[in-house]
């Protein structure tokens, strides 16, 4: 079931209906084909401008949004904070209002603080796309994960999904929990006690369960999503050492045997090989990590198209 997409912004999965999610995923399927053609470009967003405003480092997401815009014939401008006026002391809102005065159609924002895209959406005429805000949400990552799962499992409803690792700091985990439970998957999260928010089970939709150990979460899973250990967000000691983390919580080939035979492994990248995921799993036949990257462009094309194409 799909539903016409009429929102001005894409701020999070939490605000989306199941129908809107399905519309984005269905549109993304058509766009995946564009990237597989020889001429990887369609004229759909000719004359539109997309600004990528990234206050945090990013290779994958920023490149993915840039290519998505270019493959739709939109003009893409990248601003990374290191080389912008932010270093001269300009406030966030001033930066945003100045960019908005240049009349772009879409501003893609990544920021270390939760809620920044929501603030910008209130003051800008351009559509705002959240490319990750602090520990809150990363909607396009969840959408591309869902697309990857759907392409390889044929469905999402009824699947058992394990999400492992640093749940506390992970915007990917939050967006994935919202999305996958809306589409009817059953989620088990697990990680070090210090990194699994206790209130999580109570706050979010039903269909979510906190597993006592990593092994319990992986057992009989159809999909295993491994999260990155976010060293940059850890001011306190959440676990004793990386070595200990990899022994107790890392996804190894042996642990993967607990999952269903045809289970798939996802990781949002960048990977810490040998810490949260062993190399033989990351490069193994059940790993779809590079497929995720491919679908990422398709999903972002769909989002840019649905936000700036169509309705006036």
């Amino acid at each position, binding site marked *: 079931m*799909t539903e016409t997409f009429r929102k001005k912004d894409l701020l999070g999965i939490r605000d989306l209906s199941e129908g809107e999610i399905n519309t984005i995923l269905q549109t993304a399927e058509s766009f995946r084909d564009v990237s597989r053609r020889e001429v990887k470009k369609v004229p*759909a967003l000719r004359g539109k401008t997309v600004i990528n405003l990234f206050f945090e480092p990013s290779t994958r997401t920023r490149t993915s949004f840039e290519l998505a815009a270019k493959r739709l014939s939109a003009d893409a401008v990248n601003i990374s904070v290191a080389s912008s006026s932010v270093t001269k002391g300009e406030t966030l809102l001033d930066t945003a209002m100045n960019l908005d005065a240049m009349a772009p159609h879409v501003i893609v924002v990544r920021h270390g603080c939760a809620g920044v895209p929501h603030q910008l959406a209130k003051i800008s005429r351009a559509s705002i796309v959240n490319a990750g805000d602090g520990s809150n949400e990363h909607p396009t990552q969840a959408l591309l994960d869902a697309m990857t799962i759907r392409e390889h499992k044929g469905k999402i409803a009824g699947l058992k999904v394990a999400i492992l690792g640093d749940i506390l700091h992970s915007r990917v985990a939050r967006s994935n929990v919202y999305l996958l439970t809306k589409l009817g998957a059953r989620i088990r999260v697990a990680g070090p006690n210090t990194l699994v928010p206790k209130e999580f089970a109570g706050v979010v939709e039903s269909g979510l369960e906190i597993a006592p150990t990593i092994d319990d979460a992986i057992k009989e899973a159809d999909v295993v999503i491994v999260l990155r250990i976010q060293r940059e967000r850890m001011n306190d000691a959440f676990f004793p050492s990386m070595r200990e983390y990899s022994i107790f919580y890392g996804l190894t080939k042996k642990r993967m045997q607990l999952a269903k035979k045809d289970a798939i492994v996802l990781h949002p990248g960048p990977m810490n090989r040998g810490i949260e995921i062993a190399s033989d799993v990351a490069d193994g036949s059940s790993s779809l990590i590079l497929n995720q990257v491919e679908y990422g462009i398709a999903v972002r094309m769909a989002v840019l198209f649905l936000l700036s*194409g169509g309705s*006036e």
Partner: protein
Amino acid sequence: MKRAISRLASEIVEDNQGAKNLYLVGIRRRGVPIAEKIAKRIEELEGSRPTLGILDITLYRDDLSTVGANPIVNRTELDENINDKNIVLIDDVLYTGRTIRAALDQLMDFGRPRRVQLAVLIDRGREHRELPIQADFIGKVVPTKKTEIIKVMLKEFDDVEAVGIFERPVE
């Protein structure tokens, strides 16, 4: 409709000297079942079936920013290389010519066909054309007014097989 499809099929085969190297491309939505019907008829006539493809022109439309709510983007399916093929674009109705312009642009992004022809079930008449585009094969010319809508109804979408002319509803 059956007779018109039959005639289109034989004209296409005659003009292309058989079904070899022939690639029929239906334009979504209603061009697709018509292309399938023509392909089937050509198979009956020639003993070999032409290749079939599907174009979804949504991303190449020139009115994307004014069409209102977001249009659904469906998949384009051109599985075989179109280089050096004799392509026949197939649609239900030829009216302003803008759909065909979009289809031609899209086709060129997929390769360089030897030639491209156009077959339509209904031609609403040259006076409606907004671009210099004419059909090579026409099922039937049905002169209509701008205030009218012509609808090709097909079993695949409408349960009946017929062509109807309706008054455009006044908004």
